[in-house]
């Protein structure tokens, strides 16, 4: 029980601290950088910059026709594990209790058996992503320790969550402690690797969209 | 709402599979008894997750036989022979008729019924003393 007490107490506290500190640091640091103002005249029919940004964020949720064939696996597989993670994180009653304790928000939960099934699919998709990264020559060339660590710390909470629910491998309090500790590890690493894409993707896509919508051909 | 006496809320139908499993085990034990008169074993109903519905179902399936015994020893014990010779339903109750524990005994005679050797010896001494005194 000592491990569970540590996980629910000091470990989560520290993880929250690092997560909030790190994310705020990076976001504030990036957003306060000087903006590159394009002083040229906008093209004909250019939308306001913000609209251009939002359009890019939405449009790039799906690859362009020309690229669908080549990116099919990563598009589909990524959607599977992203949506799976969302369903598991926001649909399981125990997680809603956790969020309610932090933010005071709550909503109806999904049946636990359904969430378990989604969790299994999510784990499979995550493993598939790793296999892809290891077998695709270009991806393997580009991947470094940071990428693999991001994968590991995203997959461990899913794996430990499934094990805890099924009560496989150890006593429940140990499995629950492992699950909470894996979340703590995930939160601590989050601001420092590419998991930050969760926040930054909006800004990088938005910036591209602003630039492209200002000049050249309508995209 | 009288919550003290209300039955606990239920969300499952009685576990029919468990009743079948118990009956299967009893069948095996009864076979053993049929082959060996000295065989003596029991199924402890407390150790099984049987709810009231399942217990009732089991009682129905086993039926009643020819013997019903009421024992007054450290509280009341009821021994009811089932419709299957050699299978006995033994229920131990406290002063409020509340079941303390329950077993299905598989034996020629449940071990609680026969008089114990040590008790007989003491009784013989006592009767002898009473007749001579």
């Amino acid at each position, binding site marked *: *029980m000592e491990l569970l007490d540590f996980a629910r107490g000091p470990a989560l506290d520290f993880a929250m601290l690092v997560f909030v500190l790190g994310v705020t640091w990076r976001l504030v640091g990036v957003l306060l950088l000087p903006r590159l103002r394009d002083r040229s005249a906008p093209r004909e029919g250019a939308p306001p910059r913000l609209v251009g940004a939002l359009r890019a964020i939405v449009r790039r949720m799906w690859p362009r026709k020309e690229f669908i064939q080549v990116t099919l696996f990563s598009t589909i597989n990524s959607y599977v594990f992203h949506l799976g993670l969302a369903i598991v994180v926001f649909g399981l009653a*125990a997680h809603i209790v*956790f969020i309610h304790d932090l933010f005071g928000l709550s909503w109806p939960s999904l049946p636990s058996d359904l969430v378990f099934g989604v969790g299994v699919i999510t784990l499979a998709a995550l493993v598939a992503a790793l296999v892809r990264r290891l077998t695709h020559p270009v991806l393997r060339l580009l991947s470094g320790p940071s990428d693999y660590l991001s994968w590991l710390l995203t997959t461990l909470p899913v794996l430990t969550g499934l094990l805890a629910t099924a009560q496989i491998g150890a006593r429940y309090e140990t499995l629950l402690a492992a699950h909470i500790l894996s979340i703590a590890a995930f939160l601590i690493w989050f601001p420092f690797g590419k998991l930050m894409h969760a926040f930054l993707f909006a800004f990088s896509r938005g910036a591209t969209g602003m630039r492209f919508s200002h000049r050249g051909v309508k995209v | 709402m009288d919550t003290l006496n209300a039955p606990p809320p239920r969300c499952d139908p009685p576990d029919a599979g468990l009743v079948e499993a118990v009956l299967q085990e009893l069948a095996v034990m009864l076979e053993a008894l049929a082959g060996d008169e000295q065989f003596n074993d029991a199924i402890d109903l407390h*150790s099984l997750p049987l709810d009231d519905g399942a217990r009732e179902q089991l009682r129905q399936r086993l039926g009643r036989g020819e013997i019903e015994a009421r024992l007054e020893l450290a*509280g009341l014990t009821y021994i009811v022979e089932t419709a299957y010779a050699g299978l006995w339903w033994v229920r131990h109750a406290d002063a409020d008729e509340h079941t303390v*524990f329950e077993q299905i005994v598989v034996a020629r005679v449940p071990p609680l019924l026969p008089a*114990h050797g040590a008790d007989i010896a003491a009784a013989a001494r006592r009767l002898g003393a009473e007749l001579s005194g």
Partner: protein
Amino acid sequence: MTDSQPLGEMLRERGVSRRAFLKYASYMASLMALPPAAAATMAQSMAQARRQSVIWLSFQECTGCTESLARSFSPSLEEMIFDLISLDYHHTLQAVSGEAAEQARRQAMRDHKGKYIVIVDGSVPTAGGGVYSAIAGQSNVAMLAETVEHAAAVIAVGTCAAFGGLPEADPNPTGAVPVSKLVMGKPLINIPGCPPMPQAMAGTLVHLLSFGKPPELDALLRPLAFFGETIHDRCYRRQFYKRGLFAKSFDDAGARKGWCLYELGCKGPVTYNACASLKWNGGVSFPIQSGHGCIGCSEPRFWDRGGLYKALPTGTGERRRVVPIAAAGGAALGVAAAALARGRLAAAASKEAK
């Protein structure tokens, strides 16, 4: 005082037949999850044994453990434990008091040297030289050491004796410690619970009497027969948990339908005890059935686990304080980083201009 007669004879003289003895043994075998066939062996050994001398030491306790054992609901059956043991010393139950009581204890220790069982309830204070609890002018620490020296076995009943319990909870002003911290080199059994289940106490004693050794214990020295499963494992509301049907507050619509109490702080999944199967007060009910979540009272340090009503998935620390501080700190770092970057950009631009 213990008799030198075998128990079987002694009980018969009191009108308890060997048959009743066998019934008691069957009941105990059932509680201890032993095979039904073990009952006959147990009855035989107990009948031939002598009455077991037991010295019960009460330290920083509330007497709940004694109440649990003594207020049995099947008196005719469960009171038999008091026939099988000779409670040679027990503050609440014994007839003598004062110096005579201490004499009785020391006499029993002499008469049954190496054979008596010591039961302890309550934790032992050690701060200030053990001055926070003293009996007959003797500190608990000293009395414990003196009494266990020639004991055959020690049983720590109740969470206070087994793990420290309430006295040991933060800030532990009396330096309370569990019995296990002070007793070395003797067979020790922990029977925690606040209070412990009477069947657990009686069953363990009967096991010791019948087999001459402790029952199978877990890593925390608790008998597996009673502490092998969690409350959650045998809870009748388990199906509601699986289906995600939880009561959100006490006595709300879900609570009245008997839904799972996980969100109201139930510690059932991490608490090992037999409450869900044996139940309390003669099998009438147990906390969850009465609408209150398990508080985890048979686990160490359950008082300091962040709160009885804090659900298991929630953190117990100071996150609400940590988050704004971290945000402020992060923002400050971000501003500093951006300022540095802007400074460098400006310096490069001015160098270019030159």
